[in-house]
């Protein structure tokens, strides 16, 4: 029997959060953590979490499992369980709404701040805008972000300054548009990021790289933005 410990908090009933211990019979199978949660919820319907695609592309079920952020649906027990124990907590650093569900407003606000949409002040052609495969390749490792918040909520700089530091996810998206040859707003984008907090609160801790379930590297993207800001200043 797998020993699962789940963070529980229902603001209508509980004065404070607590950990609930539940034993789960996995039948010896290497299930995903989401499968375990589904088994638990089929018995106790009050256990609350988000989930949608169950294949690691929608970003709904970012959770903290045995101390590390990740997506429950693509985290096999064999990767996370230690000494037959699995501790499931909400993503750290964001307010908890209920059980494993956090309020992601701050995270989304930082995403919106970078104006994550293509800006091009030239008239659109009758067909697509042309882009070479080499230029398109510059977007690889950037556009795949699923907004799961695993990275930003693993980032100490984001914990300390969630209102002012954009955070790894938002900055990855900022660079996705800075790197896009079809975007013409580079100057404005850089000007918006040029303050002591938005970008420069990144201290290269690299927790973001360590936890990203899509294998992306926000730290590298942030490095590129820094370079762009610095070369712009000279």
């Amino acid at each position: 029997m797998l020993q699962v410990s789940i963070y529980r908090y229902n603001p209508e009933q509980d004065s404070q959060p607590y950990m609930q211990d539940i034993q789960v019979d996995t039948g010896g199978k290497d299930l995903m953590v989401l499968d375990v949660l589904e088994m638990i919820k089929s018995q106790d319907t009050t256990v609350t979490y988000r989930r949608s695609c169950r294949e690691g592309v929608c970003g709904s079920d970012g959770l903290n499992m045995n101390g590390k952020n990740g997506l429950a649906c693509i985290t096999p027990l064999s990767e996370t369980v230690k000494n037959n124990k699995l501790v499931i907590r909400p993503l750290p650093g964001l307010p908890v709404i209920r059980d494993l569900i956090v309020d992601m407003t701050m995270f989304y606000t930082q995403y919106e701040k970078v104006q994550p949409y293509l800006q091009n002040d030239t008239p659109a052609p009758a067909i697509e805008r042309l882009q070479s495969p080499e230029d398109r390749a510059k977007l690889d490792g950037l556009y795949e972000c699923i907004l799961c918040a695993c990275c930003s909520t693993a980032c100490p700089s984001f914990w300390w300054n969630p209102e002012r530091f954009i955070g790894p996810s938002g900055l990855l998206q900022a660079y996705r548009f800075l790197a896009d040859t079809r975007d013409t707003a580079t100057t404005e984008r850089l000007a918006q990021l040029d303050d002591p907090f938005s970008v420069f609160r990144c201290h290269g801790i690299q927790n973001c790289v360590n936890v990203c379930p899509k294998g992306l590297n926000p730290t590298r993207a942030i490095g590129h933005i820094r370079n762009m800001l610095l070369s712009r200043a000279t």
Partner: protein
Amino acid sequence: MSALRTISFDGVIVGGGGAGMRAALQLAQSGYKTAVISKVFPTRSHTVSAQGGITCAIASDDPNDDWRWHMYDTVKGSDYIGDQDAIEYMCSVGPEAVFELEHMGLPFSRTEEGRIYQRPFGGQSKNFGEGGQAARTCAAADRTGHALLHTLYQGNMKNNTVFFNEWYATDIVKNQDGAVVGVIAICMETGETVYVKSKATVFATGGAGRIYASTTNAHINTGDGIGMALRAGFPVQDIEMWQFHPTGIAGAGTLVTEGCRGEGGYLINKDGERFMERYAPNAKDLAGRDVVARSMVLEIIEGRGCGPEGDHVYLKLDHLGEEVLESRLPGICELSRTFAHADPVKEPIPVVPTCHYMMGGIPTNVHGQALTVDAAGNDQIIPGLYACGEVACVSVHGANRLGGNSLLDLVVFGRASGLFIEKALREGVEMRDASETDVEQAMARLDKLNASSGGENVADLRKELQNTMQNHFGVFRNGEFMQEGIRKLSDLRGRIENAKLDDKSMVYNTARIEALELHNLFEVAEATAITAEARNESRGAHARDDFKDRDDENWLCHSMYYPADKSVGKRSVNFEPKTVDTFQPKARTY
């Protein structure tokens, strides 16, 4: 109970996937007060899982490509019950809609010329089936749905669309004239229930693949729009037509794009034989999905399946080489390693036909206006209600959808709905306000659930429903066996309507949502079952052992399911495209 708070909009879109966000974008740009209600944050909608691409004759791979060839393929793919006026509209408007997405920033893969990369997909041809395989599916690696959905969300952000994220619509509000004047919706975070009033209510709620035990569909695909429409007394069309995607990962159900076969992958049985050469000598692994899925099931039934249980076949990709796999199909490599423990660079992926797409839905015209049929058999527009995307049946997919046509469908008809509603609003929409009784009626189901006690466990009932559909209404169907399935469903109805809700709390109550979703799943399942049993022929995805042939004399038509008396009627297929000659039905071979 006290009166509900009312929120008013010009247009309200239920569903934040590709169709809903494309419709919302159009309306938001027009300046009308528009809101999207989505039960998940929009980028978590199921469009995100679409992989291979969006099929459209943009003439990148082949400069001579012609949308009429795409139209021919789509009509043939539909087994001739796709409406030719709608298919004509989709294929001809498609390029404009795809270029708009590119201009919005969608990171398509590129050719050496800098144009959008297109790959071959199943059922595609040049020159009306005479010119060999076409490559018409525009792709962003194998993450096209993700790229498209995020781009649309970003476009809506730029245009200040109002989003009600993590709100759940429960039922339609109808006024005394039978017009749709909005929906009841729950804010999941607080539990507050409100009446969202609107002059145009657009259903873009997606599919319902979760009626089957084995599906590529997300947990959230519970047919909410179909459930709401049926409960409001509106019919659904061709709901028996369910696509089983040939390549779901065996056991896990997760999708492996047809693009794998487009890039040169193929299916093999336990003897290593490329068996599709026997079933479809010309198109082979790129025949229509219904054809490939049936061939796979036959291989398995006849004892040539792979694995210890012989219950799947293999998709072979290793011969494409690591470079192609990592650049063209990186997401598939990831999924296969995670869910099949197989590295496609070295070994084949175990796959099995898996429920994937609902061809049927709420009947609409090309403007997204929802339709019903009057006693005389004439189409009647349902005032105030629109539908687009998978929940709608316009119908461009008929009895079998071609790969890559779902993304095109949702973009083109999301856009068309938005354009039409903008025009309708400009001309003025007058509808009688809902009375208190009208709103109460729409609240009845939720009130009953909230006041319930006892009943059976939702997860158990859902599993029973899914197994019934899987066993009785799968790839191959048979009258007697379907009747048994229908009997099981009628036993389930009361039990599901009275399912247990232990958790009555307000804050983020997912147990309540799951109980409401189960009602919708059931409505879709029952409509599917009854209509499937009634269609006494084999056409497209609907394959019957007891009626093996297509019967154009009696069934070259849409089925219509009427919820009031659970009857099945017929509706004519449109054979009158505006600018090209009709494609006459002929034998469908690949």
